[in-house]
């Protein structure tokens, strides 16, 4: 029962999911308190009563992390296609169309340049409400381009992930985005530019098993589900209940998988502190050493 509740409470609310006009008041999924919607938004989509972290719309996430007026969008120059002509209960192209209409962007990621605490940053924010934030060719390409451009422009890399994993409808090409994003991060590493990953709810599958967990520093938001296999798959495999809190941020901190669990209200300051501490490697390292280390 407790377990069920735990899994339920972090599910994104329907109101955000379908972007329908929300009521003035809503009931918190976690503590059942009546919250004034404006208060929730003003509180960075965190319940003012119990601190439950809701999924955050991409634009709000960018506003929260980027220094005011500094964000300049890079993504959006490419659009998804349907390489396999994939049809399940619905054609992939129709799913894409609906998602674009709903979310107002061609695919499940936004990338761009900004400053964070004055540090030049390439910011990547995934949109879970675009086909579950799944990573297909466009998401992989946008992330790869952002990493390479960050390397070229000497920017740190900050990625906020939210994804159900690889996008099945693009088959093995989606799988290959795991390798593509990983190799693109090498350009960043070669320039000794820091990469801070922020894992938000939920981050699973192929995204967790590629660029998301390759951050120099990895933060997780409270209560986020972060996993390779989803809880349902594991339950079906092992045929027993999962321990409470399994695959949640706090559990992963205990297991040594993330550097810290950071409340949203503290997130920007924490990321900026890391950027401050880790930037300037190029100035510190002698040239020859840099080249030797570059891979």
């Amino acid at each position, binding site marked *: 029962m407790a377990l069920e509740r735990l899994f339920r409470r972090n599910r994104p609310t329907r109101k955000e999911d379908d972007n329908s006009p929300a009521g003035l008041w809503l009931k918190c999924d976690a503590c059942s308190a009546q919250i004034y919607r404006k208060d929730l938004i003003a509180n960075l989509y965190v319940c003012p009563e119990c601190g439950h972290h809701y999924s955050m719309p991409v634009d709000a996430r960018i506003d929260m992390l980027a220094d005011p007026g500094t964000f300049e969008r890079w993504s959006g120059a490419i659009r998804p296609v349907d390489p396999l002509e994939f049809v399940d209960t619905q054609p992939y192209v129709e799913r894409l169309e609906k998602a674009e209409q709903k979310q107002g962007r061609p695919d499940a990621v936004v990338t761009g340049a900004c400053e964070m605490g004055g540090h030049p940053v390439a910011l990547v924010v995934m949109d879970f409400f675009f086909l579950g934030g799944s990573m297909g060719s466009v998401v992989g390409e946008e992330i790869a381009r952002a990493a390479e451009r960050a390397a070229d422009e000497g920017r740190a890399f900050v990625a906020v992930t939210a994804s159900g994993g690889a996008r099945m409808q693009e088959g093995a090409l989606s799988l290959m985005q795991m390798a593509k994003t990983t190799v693109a991060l090498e350009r960043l590493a070669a320039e000794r530019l820091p990469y801070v990953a922020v894992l938000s709810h939920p981050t699973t599958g192929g995204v967790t098993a590629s660029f998301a967990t390759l951050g120099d520093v990895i933060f997780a938001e409270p209560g986020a589900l972060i996993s390779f296999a989803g809880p349902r798959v594991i339950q079906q495999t092992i045929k027993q209940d999962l321990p409470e809190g*399994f695959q949640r941020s706090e559990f992963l901190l205990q297991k040594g998988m993330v550097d810290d669990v950071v409340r949203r209200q503290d997130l920007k300051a924490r990321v900026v502190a890391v950027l401050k501490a880790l930037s300037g490697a190029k100035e510190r390292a002698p040239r020859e050493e840099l080249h030797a280390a570059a891979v």
Partner: protein
Amino acid sequence: MPLPFEKPIEDLEAKIQDMRRYAEEQGVDLSEEIALLEARLDRLKRDTFENLTRWQRVQVARAAGRPTALDYLTKAFSGFLELHGDRTLGDDPAMVAGLAELDGRQVVVVGQQKGRDTKENISRNFGMSHPSGYRKAMRMFDLADKFRLPVVCLIDTPGAYPGLAAEEQGQAWVIAACIQRMSRLEVPAVSVVIGEGGSGGALAIGVANRVLILENAIYSVISPESCAAILWRDASEAPKAAEALKLTAKDLLEQGVVDRVVPEPLGGAHNSPDEAIATVKRALVEELAALDGLPPAVLLEQRYQRFRALGRFAEAA
């Protein structure tokens, strides 16, 4: 146990056997009749195996009797010296690794090992690795770089194991790290999908300069069964999912996911394992020869470009 669509082939083979026995026992000459039937058998095999549906290929890729990683390592390679353990958590029997020679060339080998019978399958966890397996693979990549030895990886897994311990030990983290480590190899790397290339667990040892696949092997982002369970909400729709996922060797070559398809003997590798092993050996020897002597920077850049280029999208209007 023949696969369902192999039944007519098996029946015809039995018939030819019977005729042969009869001819011998009775001392009659049936050679003309037998030759006719053999020609028909050949046509039947060709028709069957050239026109397999994607779901049927999935079954061939998983067929019992299909050569496993250890079959290749002991038959295509010589002097296979198995090395165990990840130096952290234990030894994963679903991932085998070590040193071997291929046609006189010393190499480092890593392979995903399914069982050849039920008992071995259980001990090998059906070829599904825990984090320990990927750590072992990364250890091998370290060895290969240090001693300047090319790497050969044999992919054959339903996927990385989705279990409690695997998650606790950071299955996602270790797969990401293995992908990254392999992409950093300063020596030539060739991967061959010999059976089932199941998702991220397969890709972890698939970030090679050249990626080969056997004619009847598959490589997919998700198993047809799981895909069907999610998208059709019914795992029994797996044949439909297999079609939609376009996961056969031919499909993957078109997508650029693999570089070369290694043909299998007529009737599939499971019916003529030694012949399949010999073909894979020849292909590997050629591939390694082609990568011979390339400097680390060239190998790294080639691998970077190979994976960087994968994916399809359109420029926005």
